[in-house]
């Protein structure tokens, strides 16, 4: 019963995800081939290798976005070398469209809505108007400078950032994660509501989720938070599953995944701020007394040495949470991308070298992906555990 419903929901979800994408597939490369060729350095080496290794290349490869348009057969002598740093950075960064693949020089990507307030007022339009290098109402994507890759406008001769609340790739990825979590947990909740004496034990999806939730609740939240753990369990479990789903989706290289969600410092900042609020808004009187007037000799408090250190400690804890998640996921993604860069960087060295390096690269990539699966769980676990510990530390009761 549950399984069949799960399948149905999965199919509906896949359709819902695929349809807007299919209806608005855009191929904006060809029109802008001339402009992009003029602005961006053409790299036929890379273009060549991309088409040669389509099977091995990550499908969300956007490095070839502008470069792949002018297909050049063979290697031009003035070819610019493949730039791994630029390719890795482009994959890690947020973008205005969701690039899926480049097929025979055409970019297949899903345009996302751009919402900006420029000097001429609010503008809402789809990103395929500007991602190919176009300009729409004075707005365009900066190719270089401090706002590289962001929407800018020219005001009085210098580039200026408008107020930008666009639905970017990362924001879209968050929505996908939310949809997946809603489907998972609402299905499980319905299975719980419908159970009876005969069929009491949860099965299928609900059973899996019960096992996961119970293990996190019993091994992390209960011992770390303390007696009133039920008050904080909803937040901590939500944070755990959000981070876990985002990490896993970040490892999937093709469309519904591929967005670098928890490797975006803004996302981890919001998560850390949520923990900061949970710790400090629900902190007891004793918690604040320990910070501002601890039980230490008076000279340590008169010159406010201890209180200052403790006060800074309030902010360093969530800061470390933010940096840990961001840096771990970011590092994992860049390692995988760098390993895949080996293929393209050795493309001009001939078939033997390139072939063997490709084999090595694929082996390493499989290994790194397995490691990243572990990291995906571990970072969600560590975030939840440290949040629980910080919340538990703020729940001190005065010992009688």
């Amino acid at each position, binding site marked *: 019963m549950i399984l069949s419903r799960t399948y149905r929901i999965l199919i509906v979800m896949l359709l819902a995800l695929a349809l807007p994408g299919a209806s608005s597939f855009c191929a904006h490369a060809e029109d802008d081939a001339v402009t992009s060729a003029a602005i961006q350095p053409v790299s036929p080496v890379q273009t060549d290798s991309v088409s040669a290794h389509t099977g091995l290349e990550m499908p969300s490869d956007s490095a070839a976005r502008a470069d792949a348009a002018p297909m050049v057969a063979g290697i031009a002598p003035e070819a610019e070398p493949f730039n791994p740093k630029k390719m890795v950075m482009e994959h890690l960064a947020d973008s205005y469209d969701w690039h899926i693949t480049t097929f025979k020089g055409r970019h297949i990507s899903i345009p996302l809505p751009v919402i900006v307030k420029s000097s001429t007022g609010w503008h809402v339009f789809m990103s395929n108007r500007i991602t190919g290098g176009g300009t729409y109402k004075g707005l365009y994507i900066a190719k270089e400078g401090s706002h590289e890759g962001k929407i800018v406008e020219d005001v009085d001769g210098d580039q200026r950032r408008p107020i930008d609340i666009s639905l970017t790739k990362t924001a879209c990825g968050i929505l996908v994660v939310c949809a997946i979590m809603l489907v998972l947990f609402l299905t499980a909740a319905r299975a719980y509501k419908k159970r009876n004496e005969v069929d009491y034990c949860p099965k299928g999806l609900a059973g899996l989720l019960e096992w996961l939730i119970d293990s996190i609740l019993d091994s*992390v939240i209960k011992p770390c938070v303390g007696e009133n753990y039920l008050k904080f369990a909803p937040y901590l479990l939500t944070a755990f599953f959000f981070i876990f789903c985002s990490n896993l989706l970040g490892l999937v290289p093709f469309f519904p995944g591929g967005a670098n969600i928890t490797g975006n410092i803004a996302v981890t900042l919001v998560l850390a701020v949520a923990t900061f609020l949970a710790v400090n808004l629900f902190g007891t009187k004793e918690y604040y007394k320990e910070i501002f007037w601890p039980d230490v000799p008076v000279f340590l408090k008169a010159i406010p040495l201890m209180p200052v250190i403790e006060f800074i400690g309030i902010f*360093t804890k969530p800061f*470390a949470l933010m*940096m*840990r998640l961001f*840096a771990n996921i970011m590092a994992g993604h860049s390692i995988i991308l760098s390993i895949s860069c080996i293929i393209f960087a050795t493309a001009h060295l001939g078939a033997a070298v390139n072939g063997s390096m490709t084999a090595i690269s694929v082996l390493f990539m499989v290994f790194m992906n397995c490691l990243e699966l572990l990291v995906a769980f571990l970072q969600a676990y*560590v975030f939840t*555990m440290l949040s629980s510990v910080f919340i538990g530390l703020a729940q001190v009761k005065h010992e009688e």
Partner: protein
Amino acid sequence: MELSSVAAVLSAALAVFAAAFGISKIGKAAMEAISRQPESAGNIRTSMIIVAALIEGVALFAVVICFMAL
């Protein structure tokens, strides 16, 4: 390469080295404790992860500073 980026890279290496040293000591102590008292493996693992995360936090501060200096 500029001198400042050399310094940044070297200090990042130093920070990672120190963090690895600290975490290795925790891991060693935890392994020994678990082998001595296998029944309290869960508690030891929890404390080990917390302490390792604290060390990692400091190391990440250092790496971020190095990254800004790069």
